[in-house]
């Protein structure tokens, strides 16, 4: 098992290298560089000073030297300077990454809390009214764009009924570290997390449902029945365990998708996370931030696939490598 994980991590090194080269080249191809920000602050800079600063920042060096320096800085935690915010990108991200992780975790937990019972009911009692209801919900959920659904939720529960705050991640008045602070955080989290989960969950429901329907007619289930195993154990031990495999395999990707994919939710609920920052930075052409975020979500994708592989090898003996 350890050997498998180690090998899997080794494979990631060339992937990471390729990813970084690609992002670096894209960043180079975009109009503007590290100086653009300072130029914006002082548009009347004379060409001589500009040239000196370029030299100082290393922008006149050959591309590969610049690339190596960029990677080196990145490894030291230096992601450059954001010109709109006039502060290091690393600091900017650090203040927001917690919120995004919190939101993603909440969505993920809610997604599975909804999907697993509904998927099981739907798959086990196929073609009953309960199944039809669940399938109906999942089709509607599938067809509803997240940004529309989030807006409707915001309008009804945030604006109209006023049950939840309509923006931010925490009340400004409360003091950090107190119970009130955490409750306020949770209160701000509920609406975006629920909106995300209610839409996100339908894919998992459908997956689980069709897996159960496929698995329950498999031969080994017949073998189990022929042994005299009671029906409830047939489900838990034989059908569900096998049906959970693809869901477990999907978990890793799901995590990645959420880190990068909360762009809509964070923007609509003005929730200060990475997704919101990403959208703002694109609008304001704050390239150092955009590059850093793309790099982060790229790394997250690689980590997600790694996680998927590890989870799958943990639950499915057929994947394990001796």
């Amino acid at each position, binding site marked *: 098992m350890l050997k498998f994980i180690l090998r899997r991590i080794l494979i990631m090194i060339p992937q990471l290298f390729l990813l970084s080269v690609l992002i670096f080249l894209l960043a180079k191809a975009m109009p503007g560089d590290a100086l653009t920000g300072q130029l914006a602050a002082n548009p009347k800079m004379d060409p001589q000073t500009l040239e000196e600063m370029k030299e100082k920042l290393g922008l006149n060096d050959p591309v590969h030297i610049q690339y190596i320096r960029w990677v080196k800085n990145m490894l030291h935690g230096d992601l450059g300077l954001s010109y709109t915010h006039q502060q290091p990108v690393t600091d900017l991200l650090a203040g927001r990454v917690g919120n995004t992780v919190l939101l993603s975790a909440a969505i993920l937990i809610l997604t599975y809390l909804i999907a697993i019972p509904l998927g099981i009911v739907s798959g086990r009692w196929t073609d009953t009214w309960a199944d039809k209801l669940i399938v109906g919900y999942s089709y509607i959920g599938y067809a509803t764009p997240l940004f529309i659904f989030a807006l409707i939720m915001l309008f009804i529960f945030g604006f109209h009924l006023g049950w939840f705050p309509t923006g931010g991640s925490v009340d400004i008045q409360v003091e950090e570290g107190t119970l009130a602070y955490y409750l306020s955080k949770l209160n701000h989290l509920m609406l975006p997390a629920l909106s995300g989960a209610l839409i996100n969950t339908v894919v998992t429901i459908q997956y689980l449902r069709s897996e159960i329907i496929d698995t329950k007619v*498999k*031969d*080994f289930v*017949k*073998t*189990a*029945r*022929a*042994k*005299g*195993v*009671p*029906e409830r154990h047939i489900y838990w*031990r*034989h059908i569900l*365990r*096998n049906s959970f*495999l693809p869901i477990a395999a999907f978990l890793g990707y799901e995590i990645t998708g959420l880190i990068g994919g909360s762009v809509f939710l964070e923007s609509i609920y003005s929730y200060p996370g990475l997704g919101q920052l990403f959208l703002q930075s694109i609008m304001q052409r704050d390239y150092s931030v955009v590059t850093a975020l793309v790099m982060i979500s790229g790394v997250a994708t690689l980590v997600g696939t790694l996680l998927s592989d590890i989870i799958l090898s943990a*639950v*499915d*003996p*057929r994947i394990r490598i001796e």
Partner: protein
Amino acid sequence: MEKQPLLEIDRLRVSFQIDGDYYAAVDDVSLTIGENEVVALVGESGCGKSALALSIMGLHPPEKTKVEGCLQFKGTNLLSLSVSELNRIRGKEIGMVFQDPLTALNPLMTVGRQIEESMDYHLRLSGAEKKKRTIRLLERVGIPEPEKVYHRYPHELSGGMRQRVVIAIAVACEPALLIADEPTTALDVTIQAQIMGLLKELQQQMKTSIILITHDLGVVAEMADRVAVMYAGEIVEWADVDTIFHRPLHPYTRSLLQSIPSAQTKKERLHVIQGIVPPLHKLPRRGCRFQPRISWIGADKHEPDPKLREVEPGHWVRCTCYQHFYFPDDQTVGGVGYGAS
């Protein structure tokens, strides 16, 4: 077989729902299986052999299947039992060996656990006792290094080894009756012989009765005491194994035997039974069901409503057409029909 039969199948009818209507895949089948007896069910695919076997185990999905008649096993009608009552018999009194060992085992459970599982419900044994018994079983079904295999997963074993595990599961509680549904179809020839040998050995040691479903007549000759030939859901001939092989009467039985390739007589082509078993919803429900496949025998030679008749003690045949049956010349048969060439 003067003894009280172990299993008495009486006018069993198994119907499946297709587009809202029920069609009988097993139609009015009566059979008896005695203690320590091997009864073979033979016939082409789609003749209702497996449907019959699964109905004994109660393994048809209840919402789409209708099972009528009587299955008297050791004095109780299996069809009158609830699922939980049936669970006390399944695995303990009746074991089943499935066709495809590649799919019959749960991929996520170790071999040992899968064998022990049936003991969990039927035998009061401690964990250590179960393990001991399982390892002994693995040894008995001919698996080398049983202690190691106990911890293996199915995908780590070959097809033949997996079928041995499936057999070990079926006989884990020493059942009185073993149903083997084409146990060697998915295996290669050398392994087939080993598996059949194993079944025979277990039958003799454990005093188990076996219902053997197969289309391999060679296996039937070696294993069976009595043979039921099924066609299109009905039994067309039912006799002891010698009678079936030496004095077969029904055209279908004779055609099946004629189709066995022989090493002695090298013919240009193999004998082929014309046509195919009709699909369930197109089965002729009146008259001799085999008639369309022996079209050169006149319609007036068949009974309008064929019944199984005892033509000599212990030898039952359906329809009178056997009295007029002959094989046509090779030329007239060879070119027509499915799969001839």
